[in-house]
C-alpha cells in the first residue's frame, strides 16, 4: 500500500515563501541594532577598540564564506525538492536507482577541505596576533578580581583600588595607550566581556589570565559577567570608562587622595565604624580594612551601585544601605537592621566619600 500525495506543490511553495519572508524580516530588523550606532547597544560588529576590531574583520570573512556555502547548499536542497518532487502519474515506476559515485564524493570532500584550510589560516593568524601581543612601554596595568557578584579593580602601580567601573585611557593618533588586564577570581569562575572592546576572557580562581584592550574613543562601555557564577550572575555588570589621557590623569589624581573626613558627616562616620560595615569594606586611611566588599574610599565617584544593579543616587544608596537584599536578592551584603536615623547618617557619610 502506498500513501498518496496531497497538495505537495502547495506545500513546497508555502515552505519556500515562508523561509524567504522570515529571513527577510529577521535580517531587515537587525541591520540597525547590529550595525547601526544606537546608544547603549553593545554590538560586536561596532567595535571601538582593538582587539574587537580585528575580530570583526575576521568575522566578516567567515560570515562571507558561510553565506556562500549556505546559498549553494540550501539552493541545491530547494532545487532537488522542486525539481524531483513526486508528480501525478509517478506511481507507476521507480526512478533510476543510483548507488553513488566516487568522483562526486571526491569532489565534495576536496572542496570542504580547501575551505577548511583557508579558515585554519585566518583563525591561526588572528589568534596569534591577539594572544601574543606584548605590552608596549607605558601600558596601563590593571588587575580585575571577580567576586560573587561584583568586580574588584586594582591598579597596582598606581596604588588605586576601585570597583565595578574600570577607567582606562584612550589611544589617539599620536599615542598608543593599551591597557593590559590581569584577571583573577576570589571565589567562582566569572568572565569579563565588554563586546565593543574585546572578546571575553574568564576569571578563574587559583589562576591568572591576561587580556588587553586599546580603545580609541572616550565613552562608557557596558559589559556583563559572561560565565554563570551563581544567583546574581545577571546583576554583575561591568562598565569601562574610557577617558582622554588628560582626564584619565585627573581621575588618577582624585582616586589617590585620602578619604574625605568632613566634620558634618561625623555622626554617620561613627555609625559606620561602630557596625560591621568595616569587616567587609575598606576606606583607605581609616581602620576600615575589610576585603570582602568593594572599596568605598571614593564611592561617590562611581556611576552605579551593586555592580550596575542601580544608578548611584541618594534614594538608591539609602535603599541599598537599608536592605541590600531588596535591590539584589541573594547578594552577600546582609540587611544590617539599621534604624531610619542610622541609615540617613550612614548615607550622608558615604556621600562625602567623593
Amino acid at each position, binding site marked *: 500500500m502506498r500513501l498518496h500525495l496531497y497538495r505537495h506543490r502547495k506545500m513546497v511553495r508555502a515552505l519556500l515563501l515562508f523561509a524567504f519572508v*522570515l529571513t527577510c524580516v529577521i535580517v531587515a530588523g537587525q541591520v540597525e541594532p547590529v550595525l547601526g550606532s*544606537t546608544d*547603549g547597544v*553593545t554590538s560586536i560588529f561596532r567595535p571601538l577598540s582593538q582587539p574587537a576590531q580585528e575580530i570583526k574583520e575576521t568575522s566578516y570573512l567567515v560570515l562571507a564564506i558561510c553565506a556562500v556555502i549556505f546559498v549553494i547548499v540550501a539552493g541545491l536542497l530547494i532545487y532537488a*525538492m522542486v525539481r524531483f518532487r513526486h508528480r501525478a502519474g509517478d506511481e507507476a515506476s521507480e526512478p533510476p536507482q543510483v548507488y*553513488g559515485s566516487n568522483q562526486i564524493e571526491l569532489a565534495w570532500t576536496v572542496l570542504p577541505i580547501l575551505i577548511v584550510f583557508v579558515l585554519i589560516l585566518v583563525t591561526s593568524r588572528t*589568534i596569534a596576533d591577539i594572544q601574543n601581543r606584548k605590552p608596549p612601554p607605558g601600558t596601563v596595568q590593571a588587575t580585575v578580581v571577580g567576586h560573587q557578584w561584583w568586580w574588584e579593580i586594582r591598579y597596582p602601580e598606581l596604588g588605586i583600588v576601585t570597583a565595578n567601573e574600570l577607567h582606562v585611557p584612550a589611544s589617539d593618533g599620536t599615542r598608543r595607550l593599551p591597557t593590559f588586564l590581569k584577571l583573577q577570581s576570589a571565589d567562582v569562575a566569572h568572565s569579563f566581556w565588554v*563586546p565593543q572592546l574585546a572578546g571575553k576572557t574568564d576569571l578563574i580562581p587559583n589562576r591568572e589570565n591576561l587580556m588587553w584592550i586599546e580603545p580609541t574613543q572616550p565613552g562608557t562601555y557596558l559589559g556583563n559577567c*559572561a560565565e554563570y557564577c551563581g544567583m546574581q*550572575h545577571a546583576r554583575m555588570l561591568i562598565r569601562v570608562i574610557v577617558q582622554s589621557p588628560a582626564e584619565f590623569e585627573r581621575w588618577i589624581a582624585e582616586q589617590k587622595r585620602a578619604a574625605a573626613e568632613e566634620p558634618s558627616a561625623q555622626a554617620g562616620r561613627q555609625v559606620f565604624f561602630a557596625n560591621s560595615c568595616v569587616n567587609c569594606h575598606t576606606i583607605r586611611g581609616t581602620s576600615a580594612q575589610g576585603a570582602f566588599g568593594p572599596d568605598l574610599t571614593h564611592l561617590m565617584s562611581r556611576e552605579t551601585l551593586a555592580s550596575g544593579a542601580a544608578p548611584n543616587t541618594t534614594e538608591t544608596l539609602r535603599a541599598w544601605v537599608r536592605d541590600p537584599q531588596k535591590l539584589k536578592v541573594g547578594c552577600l551584603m546582609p540587611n544590617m537592621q539599621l534604624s531610619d536615623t542610622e541609615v540617613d547618617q550612614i548615607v550622608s557619610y558615604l556621600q562625602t566619600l567623593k
Partner: protein
Amino acid sequence: MATQEIALAEVRQPTTSLIDRLHSLVVTVDHKKLGLMYIGTAIGFLVVAGLMALGLRLQLAVPNNTFLEPDVFNRFFTMHGTSMVFLVGMALVSGFGNYLVPLMIGTRDMAFPRLNAFGYWMYLFGGLLLYFSYLGAPGLAGHGSAPDVGWFAYAPLTGAAFSRGHSTDYWILSLLLTSIGSTVSAINVIATAVSLRCKGMTLMRMPLLVWLMIVVNFMILLALPALSAAQIMLLIDRYLGGHFFDTQAGGSAVIWQHFFWIFGHPEVYILIIPAFACVSEIVPVFSRKPIFGYPVMVGATVMIGLISTSVWAHHMFSVGMTSVSNIFFAISTFTVAVPTGIKIFNWLGTMYGGKIRFDLPMLFCIAFLFQFLIAGLTGMMLGVAPLNWQLTDSYFVVAHFHYTLVGGFLCGMFAGFYYWYPKAVGRLLDRRLGLWHFWLFVIGFHVTFDTMHFPGLLGMPRRIFTYDAGRGWDTLNFVTSIGGLLQAVGILCFVINIIRSAKKGKLAGNDPWDAWTLEWTTSSPPAEYNFATEPVVRSRRPLWDLKHPEDPDWKYE
C-alpha cells in the same frame, strides 16, 4: 532468491486490566516494549523540561521582569538543560536503538534482554531522582532545592563552599544512575549489532541506521566515563575532603571543564548521529532511491566519531589556554566539518533524481537538513576562536546549540517517530494533526531560534535571569518568547496525535511507506518474536529485492 516471508498479523490478546498492563511493562525484557518505554518516558521529560523552558522565556520576554525569582530561574535552566540532554536526548537514542536495531538486522531480541531492562530502570530512577531534588534537596538550614549550577556545573560553583545543601549531590547521583543505564544500553546495542545479524547481512549490508547506532554507542562508552569520573571526584571533594576542584585548597577549576567537555562534546554527536540515522533511512525511502554513497556515509560517520573526541576544548576558548592550544582545537573543530559536509551532500545526492514524496517523515527530514545546515555553519563560526571569544556563553551559542539539538536532533527524531510509529502501534499518525504539529513547530522554532542569535551579537550573555531595557535586547527577546509558545502548541498537537492515533488512526499494514528494510516485512506491531522465520538477505535493501525480482540490488552492490 531471498526467502523472507511476510508474516501474518498476530492476533493480539486483549489485555484485561490496567494493572496487568503495567505489570507486563515492569517485568518485560522485550526490546520493543523497552524501546517504547524509553521513548514514552523521554516524551514525558520533554514536556516537563519544555514547560520549564517556557517559564524561562516568559521571564525573559520583557526587561526587568519579576515572573520568576532569580534562584527559581537558575534552577529551571539547570533542570531544563540536564533533563533535555540526559533524560530526553540519551533516552531517545537508547529507545530508537533498542526498538529498531534488532528489527532491522532480522533478529528476535537484543543480545542481553535482562541487561536491557536493567538499563531502562536505571535511567527512569535516575530521572525521578533528579526531580525528587525539588523535595529532597533542601537539607540543612533550608539551603538549596533543585540543582542550580547549570547543566555543565562548572567548578568551583559546585564545591561545598558555594553549593550548600544537597542540590548538587542530586545532580551528581541522578546522572551517575542514568549513565549506568546508558552504558549498559550501549554495550547491548553494540553486542546485538555485531553478533546477532541475520543470515547474509554482512557489516556492509547493514542498514545505515544500525551502522550509525554502533558508532554512537561506541562514543557513549568512550565519553561517559569522563563525566562519571569527574562527578565521583566532585563527590570526593564535597564529602571526603578531596581537593580536585577545590580552588581554595589548590585544586583546579579548569580540570573540571576539561573532564566535562571530554564527555560533553562527543555527547553532542551522540545526540545528533541518531538523527542522522533516522534521516539516512527516511530520505531514501521517500526519494525512492537507495542512499547515495553508502560506504562513504559509513566512513564519514566513523570519522565524525573519531574526530569528535579531539575537539572538546573548543568549549573553552575563553578560559585562557595558550595560543597553541587554541589553534589546535580550532583546527580539529574545522576538520569535523568535512565528514559532516559529506553527509549533507550525500543526502542531497539521494534526493537528486528521485521522486520525492512529501509525507510527514520527509517533511521533518527536510526541516532537519535545512536547520542542520545552518547549525553547522554557525558551528564553524564558533570554531573560529577569536570570534568564539565574542560569542561563547552568549545567546548566539544558545541559539546555535538549540539549532543542532532542536532543529537537528529533535526534528530528526520526529521524522523517525512519524516513520516508525505505524510499525510500533499498527496505526498511522493522523496527517492533519501532524501537519499542524510540523508547521507550528517549525515556524515556532525559527521565530525563536533565528531571532535568538541576535541578542548574542548584541552582547547578551546566557543564563541571566533579567536584563535592563535599552541595550537592543527587548524586542528580540519578546519575539523569541512568542516563538516558544508556538513550539509548545506544536508539541501539544504531537502529543494529542500520539494518543488519538493509537486508537483511531488508519490501520498501517506491514509496510505503509513501501520501504526496503527488514522491519517492514513483519507485522505492525511486530509479534514478540519479531520474525516467524529468520530472514535471509542478499543486499542492503531486502524488500527492494523482493518487490523487484527483475532488478535486485544484490546485482549491483
